[in-house]
């Protein structure tokens, strides 16, 4: 499946590859920064998985294996851009500045969102597959009307690519030439559904049928993802219209902590992909080409550990919300049924709010 059509700037061993279309524009500091981001996200993910095992989270959606796809895309974004994630975009959230503890509110089941989407210019998670693609195109239509040089990125998976909403969003993005980049992480699986059930041909081709560019990038190659995404965003911001980026990658872990992937996929496949680990790849480059010392790598690990410790502390301190908060923001304006419910709950005495 991985052929010449795939944009790659690094081999799995971390050696540079010449590509006729793209070259890496990043220096040592930036590459090291990407490395750092990836290590932190993996650490965050591991910590969250163990928090879930310990009963501290209701659920967790791991991102192992997809760090390069998310960090490459996330770092290509500009602050003024806006992003529409699914439930698995922890790396993107990290790049947008969302505090890790806020990312976990959804999974601790204390919030259906978790952060201020306008502050971070990163929308709340969309769990219903595909809805966000249309929302992103709409946001991009707003950018056009504002005459702003901004872009929107819509995230979705290989599985969601079959949903009518994602496909309609391609129609609209093309018809209105909206500044939107569709970033599809093809991690080969939609829970137990293999990619082959969603499409017989590489996914990025789908864009061509709608009249805009589609491109497949090695989603485990952070340098390639960064460059491909950056160019698509740059183009979108100045009227170049939409692009579909298919980041070809792999979900090394379970779909979520509720999932049991041994029921539907074989270990050998996972092993193959472990050899394409996105973090090791760039580490090799940093060592070989930039002679980065192991102390420097250790620093990142220390930093990641500290982050994880803090995260754990924050999560444990995250209390069950007062039930009365379920009535807040159900509507923007006062609503009699909401007020009726609020009164009833106060009378029942299950809330800390005092009876009125």
């Amino acid at each position, binding site marked *: 499946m991985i052929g010449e059509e795939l944009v790659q700037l690094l081999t799995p061993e971390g050696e540079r590859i010449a590509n006729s279309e793209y070259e890496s524009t990043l220096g040592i500091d930036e590459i090291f920064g990407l490395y750092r981001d990836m290590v932190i996200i993996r650490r965050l993910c591991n910590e969250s998985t163990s928090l879930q095992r310990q009963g501290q989270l209701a659920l967790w959606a791991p991102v192992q294996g997809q760090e390069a796809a998310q960090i490459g895309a996330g770092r290509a974004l500009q602050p003024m851009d806006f992003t529409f994630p699914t439930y698995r975009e922890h790396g993107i959230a990290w790049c947008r500045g969302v505090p890790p503890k806020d990312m976990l509110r959804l999974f601790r089941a204390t919030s259906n969102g978790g952060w201020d989407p306008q502050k971070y210019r990163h929308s*709340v998670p969309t769990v219903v597959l595909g809805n966000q693609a249309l*929302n*992103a*195109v709409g946001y*991009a*239509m707003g950018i056009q009307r504002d005459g702003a040089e901004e872009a929107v990125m819509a995230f979705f998976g290989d599985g969601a690519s079959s949903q009518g909403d994602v496909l*309609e969003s391609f129609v*609209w993005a093309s018809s209105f030439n909206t500044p939107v980049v569709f970033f599809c992480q093809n991690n080969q699986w939609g829970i137990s559904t293999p990619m082959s059930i969603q499409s017989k041909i590489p996914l990025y081709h789908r864009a061509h049928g709608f009249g805009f560019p589609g491109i497949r990038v090695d989603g485990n190659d952070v340098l390639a993802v960064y460059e491909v995404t950056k160019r698509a965003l740059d183009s979108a911001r100045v009227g170049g219209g939409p692009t579909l980026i298919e980041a070809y990658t792999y979900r090394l872990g379970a779909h979520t902590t509720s999932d049991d992937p041994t029921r539907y996929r074989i270990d050998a496949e996972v092993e193959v992909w472990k050899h394409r680990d996105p973090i090791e790849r760039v580490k090799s480059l940093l060592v070989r080409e930039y002679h980065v010392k192991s102390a420097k790598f250790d620093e990142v690990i220390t930093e990641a550990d500290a982050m994880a410790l803090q995260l754990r502390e924050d999560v444990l301190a995250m209390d069950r919300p007062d039930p009365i908060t379920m009535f807040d923001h159900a509507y923007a*304006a006062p609503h009699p049924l909401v007020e009726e419910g609020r009164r009833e709950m106060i009378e029942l005495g299950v809330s800390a709010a005092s009876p009125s």
Partner: protein
Amino acid sequence: MTTTNMTMAKALNEGLRRAMEKNKKVLIMGEDVGKLGGVFRITDGLQKDFGEDRVIDAPLAESAIVGTAVGLAIRGYRTVCEIQFDGFVYPAFDQIVSQVAKLHKRSDGVYTMGLVIRIPFQGGIGAIEHHSESPEAYFAQTAGLRVVSCSNPSDAYWMIQQSIEHDDPIIFCEAKSRYWEKGEVDLDNPPQGLFDAAVRREGTDVTVIGYGSSVKTMLRAADTAVAEGTSLEIIDARSLAPLDLDTMARSLEKTGRLVVVQEAPHMASIGSEIVAELSERCFYSLRAPGLRVSGYHVPYPPSRIEEDYRPSVERILDAVDRVMGAES
């Protein structure tokens, strides 16, 4: 007070125009809303005057019309989505229930879902299938949405403006069979709040509550009833979610008898809610069971026989007789 006489279709058009003049962030989006002015001409002339950026001819995809309006709302725009006919709102159901209704909550109040989804609803125009449906209860049931209905020019003119100004998402149901009827519109002052019911005619014996196309039928029933010596109080619910139960209960305390009229089948409907709520609130004043006069529980029939499906004067009076005769 200066009033102008116009059709309900024209009143909606004028209301939209005024909302667009007042607020540059107001957009209109839908199928055929531009040059054609919509199949009912509600948006006639607006694209010419406000441009293609503000009156947007959509590709034919309802989920996308609503789904992009959600993104526009996040960006600070207020989009009035036109759904061409009631039966074509269902492709957008997922976006409405999962995003429109829930994003304000999910974002902890950061996102304002100030958008309006206009739906020409109910039957009575001799159309083919899917053009005469009553989907209002699907939306009324959904926490996070509000549902209103208009059936005369004054309400049309004002309610559309009030809806656009409102910060919650509003499903705006237009009684399409009333588009061509004329009435007086006071262009200076709204007759009442968006969520208030209106007593259209005072009476003493039976409270008859309905909305949309049924209001006119109810008023005709009231005329006939007078001749038979029965006085009906006619209430136009106007807001279907939330319901103005105070106005309804006040009437019922007086009459002690209730008939609810709607084109939708009665199963888990607005009518069920009104009867259930008023049976609770007015338990000791009710002198007879609250009755519903509704469409039948079958797919909307071919329009040559639709008048036998829609609540008729006869069926309303039949229910009136039953609540009058039920005296204990």
